[in-house]
């Protein structure tokens, strides 16, 4: 047990002669990493391009849960209902009314946020588990409504969604300029990333406002927050509205990228997937939410690659049983959620922090 002695935790050994990282180099490093990540879809296969788009869109929805769960400490099992609300608003405005993206994208967020305010009468009276069960009820009622309301949703068969048209150009059409080609997926990826960037900056800034501090207070102990004057019910409702707004914008982009929407896709499983994203990324970490979205979205594709090497995994879903890619991917992400919660509650964010700290310690000991 001697190893306990020579392993001082974390920041206790900063006094070494290693060069302190200035704000400038750290920012430059960040920019390089971000540019490198943004360039990935330019050189990847179509499958990975699609994954990149789905990851970026899901990350927007995951940011909503980041605000709700990570900042305000509330649990929502109904997130996919709000994604659907935004998606159907966008379909109604974009496809049925023929309005441009400048209208349907923000409106999708606003309408979904308004739907999110439906939990207000419950947020004031209920806490914790009861509130989580209410969000579950919202999900099931919404699922029923999507099936029934076929004027907008196309009923159980689903319907086509609106295209994204920017300056008269359908974003999913390939652009060819001389030797260069930008596929529809790549263009959509950059649009989604632009929206994601705005969403992420807004979420970060929100956490530093009075409202954000209020969220933190009710997360840490809602009774205490109420005693020191934080309007608990209003804060909870605001958190739900913001989360639903993010979900709505993600939903609008999602249906337009899919080019269709079916009521069956907005189920509990989708909600659990969004929750899994913020858990795997690390609850309370904004970058973690985005990393978690990439992780969860990429699992099926990674399993497909594994299936090429490992025998016994069928690549087509089978109704009769057996190990197939989609089922194995589900199993893996369930396992990832449980493993993260048990072994590293801070998720990918926590793991990367540990790695960075370890690398720095090593660098110092060599210097």
């Amino acid at each position: 047990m001697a190893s306990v002695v020579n392993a001082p935790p974390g920041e206790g050994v900063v006094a070494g002669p290693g060069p302190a990282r200035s704000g400038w180099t750290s920012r430059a490093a960040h920019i390089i990493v971000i540019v490198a990540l943004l360039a990935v879809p330019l050189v990847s296969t179509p499958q990975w391009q699609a994954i990149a788009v789905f990851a970026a869109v899901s990350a927007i929805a995951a940011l909503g849960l980041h605000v709700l769960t990570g900042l305000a400490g509330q649990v929502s099992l109904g997130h996919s209902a709000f994604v659907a609300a935004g998606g159907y608003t966008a379909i109604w405005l974009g496809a049925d009314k023929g309005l441009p993206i400048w209208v349907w994208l923000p409106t999708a967020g606003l309408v979904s946020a308004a739907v999110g305010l439906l939990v207000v009468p419950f947020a004031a009276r209920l806490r914790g588990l009861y509130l989580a069960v209410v969000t579950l009820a919202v999900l099931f009622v919404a699922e029923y409504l999507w099936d029934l309301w076929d004027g907008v949703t196309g009923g159980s068969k689903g319907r086509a969604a609106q295209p994204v048209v920017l300056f008269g150009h359908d974003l999913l059409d390939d652009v060819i300029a001389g030797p260069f080609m930008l596929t529809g997926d790549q263009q959509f990826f950059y649009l989604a990333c632009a929206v994601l960037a705005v969403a992420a900056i807004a979420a970060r800034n929100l956490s530093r406002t009075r409202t954000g501090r209020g969220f933190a207070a009710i997360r840490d102990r809602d009774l205490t927050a109420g005693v020191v004057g934080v309007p608990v019910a209003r804060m909870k409702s605001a958190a739900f509205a913001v989360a639903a707004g993010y979900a709505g914008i993600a939903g609008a982009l999602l249906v337009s990228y899919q080019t269709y929407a079916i009521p069956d896709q907005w189920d509990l499983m989708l909600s659990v997937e969004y929750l899994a994203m913020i858990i795997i990324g690390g609850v309370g970490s904004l970058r973690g939410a985005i990393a978690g979205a990439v992780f969860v979205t990429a699992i099926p594709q990674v399993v497909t690659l594994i299936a090429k090497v490992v025998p016994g995994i069928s690549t087509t879903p089978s109704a009769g049983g057996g190990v197939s890619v989609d089922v194995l991917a589900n199993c893996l992400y369930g396992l990832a959620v449980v493993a993260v919660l048990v072994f590293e509650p801070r998720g990918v964010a926590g793991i990367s922090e540990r790695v960075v700290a370890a690398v720095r310690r090593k660098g110092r000991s060599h210097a």
Partner: protein
Amino acid sequence: MDNFLQLTFQGMALGCVYALIGLGFVMVFKSSGVFNFAHPVFVMISAYIVAALVPHGFGWGVLVALVCMAALAIVCEKIILRRLAGRSLYVVIMATLGLSVMGQAVVAMAWGVNPRGSTEGPMGRGVLRVGGVALPWTGVWIITVSLVLLAVLYLFFQRTRYGLALRAAADHHEAALAQGINMRWVQTISWGIAGVLAVAAGVFLGAFPRRVSPDMVDTALGALPALVIGGFGSLAGAVVGGMSVGLLLVLGSGYLAEYGGVHVVLPYVAMLLVLTLRPSGLFGHHEAERI
């Protein structure tokens, strides 16, 4: 009128199943503070095990399922959920949802997503005629066995030392520890009982709509509104809540068929109503909390 009586009977049978599922949630919640979102999957897995073993004998199937599910529940508690004690609400919810996702995936690997045969076994498909009302034998069996199980549970809690220990542990964790009650043992027992209740519910749920399928998870989740309507934590609450949900589902599907699948959401709507009027459920009581 006959139709109404028949539907009411079926609703009560389904209500008994929901009461059993709800009790599975409550057992675990009271003893370890974990709200086990994987319980519906336990119910589904036990139904699949019994359905797979029915050709070899119904009794064997139930026996194997009982052993497997009690073991599975205890293993989940010992390996995963014990380590999460005292953490935030979302941690426990997500851990059990993660288990649920894994469980559904494993079932899909083992048995596929197509519906399987039913688990009725010796309960048979016949009907018992009382006047003009046809009561399916499965329903009669479900109500009888559920009532017996509930009575046994009640006696266990009220009349035995072990039941007393479990009640004390649920009432006040630290006071129970100070009395020398072994909390690990208490939790193992409660998770084991929850596993056993899951088997009973699985067999009945697989026999009553005569279908064992992955949809059972969503069906079993209907015990959640039942619990909220009744209020967490009391046996009477679970039974009353389960009965209301069973009746709502069956009467709703009988009389509101023209509105699509509205009966599926009726329990949730009822739950929202109860929560607006009585936030801690019909039988729950509001607890003051120390800051």
